[in-house]
């Protein structure tokens, strides 16, 4: 078993145990195993992305960052997570009880589901759907509902303001996000993530679709509510917005899904624009991770550099700048494809 095949090898080995079982049992068991793998990936990522974010911001701000617990403060996030688990679980008296309770669960489910279509490496897609990108966008958009539920259910004015901002922001930014991806899909001719990666064997789509990449990056920043588009939380104005009344593990679930979404939009960016797991010498899954973390680093860099944008600027920027640009990008891509076909194949 090579380093390259370490994960696929494990999967094949486990599948071997179930050789005699009926097919649906195998599928179910493997599905559970993939879920465990993805959950472990999310939890570990969230813990250490928080650590990473704190360290990166600290170095940008002439500080040291967490450095007390464990070597270089590596255990700080673990301690924070344990602390959050031990916090009292408060449900405000005026809250809409069930909506309040369900919201953090509802936000975490799509955050996990997104990973089903991410190609982590060669032959490492948990569920290689033929409508993978479409599935990703559809599932990602349900996050809005969960945040709205949290904000409404909290029965708090700041939370309400935050969830209203959330709806306005996320619904509008989904449109340029989708349109920017359309260019890639036109080039690849497929919605299947593994095929999009395979189609980038010669040239990464960031070179063919630079504008789409920028639009995707901006819209994705808004989709995952990160600065400068973190209006939903806006802690200087509406003090964490929809999350204001949440404590302990419920709050941690929001936090966790936020980082899970950060990883998944970075992973999608890598898949669509940066050639996915492809790269020389190193194993494919390592290439994938390297690219993802570079993307995450850029997200963090932006967050610690820019002040927050205002809500009306946010929306007008979306409708007046991003959307026309993404439409123009689709047009240019279409014309480009036709010209390419004319030149290479001699026909339309």
């Amino acid at each position: 078993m090579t380093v390259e095949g370490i994960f696929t090898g494990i999967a094949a080995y486990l599948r071997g145990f179930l050789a005699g079982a009926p097919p649906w049992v195998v599928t179910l068991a493997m599905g559970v195993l993939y879920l465990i793998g993805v959950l472990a990936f999310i939890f570990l990522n969230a813990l250490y992305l928080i650590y990473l974010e704190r360290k990166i911001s600290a170095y940008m701000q002439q500080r040291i960052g967490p450095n007390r617990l464990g070597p270089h403060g590596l255990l700080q996030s673990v301690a924070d997570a344990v602390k959050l688990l031990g916090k009292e679980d408060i449900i405000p008296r005026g809250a809409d009880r069930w909506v309040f309770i369900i919201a953090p669960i509802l936000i975490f489910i799509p955050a996990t589901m997104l990973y089903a279509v991410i190609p982590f490496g060669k032959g490492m897609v948990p569920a290689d759907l033929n409508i993978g990108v479409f599935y990703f966008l559809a599932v990602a958009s349900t996050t809005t509902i969960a945040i709205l539920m949290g904000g409404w259910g909290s029965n708090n004015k700041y939370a309400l303001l935050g969830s209203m901002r959330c709806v306005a922001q996320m619904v509008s930014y989904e449109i340029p996000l989708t349109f920017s991806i359309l260019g890639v899909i036109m080039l690849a001719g497929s919605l299947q993530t593994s095929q999009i990666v395979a189609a980038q064997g010669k040239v990464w789509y960031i070179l063919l679709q630079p504008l789409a990449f920028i639009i995707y990056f901006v819209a994705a920043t808004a989709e995952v509510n990160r600065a400068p588009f973190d209006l939903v939380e806006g802690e200087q104005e509406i003090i964490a917005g929809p999350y204001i009344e949440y404590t302990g593990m419920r709050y941690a679930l929001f936090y966790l899904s936020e980082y899970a979404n950060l990883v998944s939009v970075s992973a999608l960016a890598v898949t669509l624009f940066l050639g996915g797991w492809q790269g020389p010498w190193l194993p494919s899954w390592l290439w994938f991770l390297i690219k993802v973390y570079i993307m995450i680093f850029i997200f963090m860099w932006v967050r610690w550099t820019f002040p927050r944008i205002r809500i009306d600027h946010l929306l007008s920027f979306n409708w007046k700048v991003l959307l026309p640009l993404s439409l123009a990008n689709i047009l240019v891509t279409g014309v480009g494809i036709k010209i390419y076909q004319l030149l290479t194949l001699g026909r339309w």
Partner: protein
Amino acid sequence: MAAAAENLRTEEIQLNMGPQHPSTHGVYRALLTLDGEKVVGVENIIGYLHRGIEKLAEDRTYTQVIPYTDRLDYLAGMLNNLGYVQTVEKLMGIEVPERAEYLRVIMAELSRLASHMVMVASMALDLSGWTAWFPPFRERERILDLFEMACGSRLTVSYMRIGGVAADIPPGFLPALESFLNDLPRMIAEMNGLITGNEIFIARCQGVGKIDLETALAYGITGPNLRACGLPFDLRKARPYGIYDRFEFDIPTLNNGDSYDRFVIRLLEMEQSARIIRQAMDQLPEGPVQAKVPRVIKLPRGEVYHQIEGAKGILGFYLVSDGGSKPYRLHIHSPSFVNLGALPRISIGGTVQDFVVNIASIDIVLGEVDR
């Protein structure tokens, strides 16, 4: 569809912003009336930090009042000290030694620098410019270190005395001050690079919380906030107190009177304060730092109103003496209190986010607002 639209109705909501809120800069509460995100009504609710300093002063000797003044604008303690002791000296009619005058100017301008640094840092932070918070606070730390060298305290300094200052500066003070002044331009450049020229920052501040000169004067706005409206009105120049007439400096003005100008004017004023400090360092004479004053200070019967250019605007002390050893009445005219009175005027019509910018840009300190 039309029927559904008729059944829809919108309602204004009342939002209590504060007294616990990260952007109110202290225990200040604004009762906002919101139409969606738009602010249609603002009511200032203050007094959470009211300690009755004016009343307390009536029961303290003139010297004992000095520590209370530290707690007015606690970001610029030296300036409050200066305003109060000069008021007493004016009624008493005593001369302050030269060296003490120069030390006062150095400390007062350092205090102004520290206060402006907090303002630019916290305004950047209120716009979520986290990184821009650090350069000013890094430099402010060095000002507080200088204060500590001179008087042992960092924030509540009580450095000035009636007729002089509490102590002469220690030997290492001037070199440390020199190196601080040398590093100051770098900090201002960092701020300009990080935040002043940032597109988002400009978009969020320009034209926000605009007030024209005439309205500003009618509302009693003074200090940097007034100079951002275009009037070069600075008591240090207009009617120099102490020895301010000996220094060369400019009064920076900007013309728009919006939040952006109120921010930039602070950065410009920092440079001027540094200029004054440099001149004061060069001219600093040797000599005593405390005039001879009686052990029990008694003021002649009478009244006096003295104003200085505080960090946030004109800081006035109105002192009535009945000939005894305690003030009969001490009234403190605090710039933050009056400037805050204009906040509803400049904030209505903006969004909640604009309101946060406006609070930050008029630069209030609740210790001074509530007294």
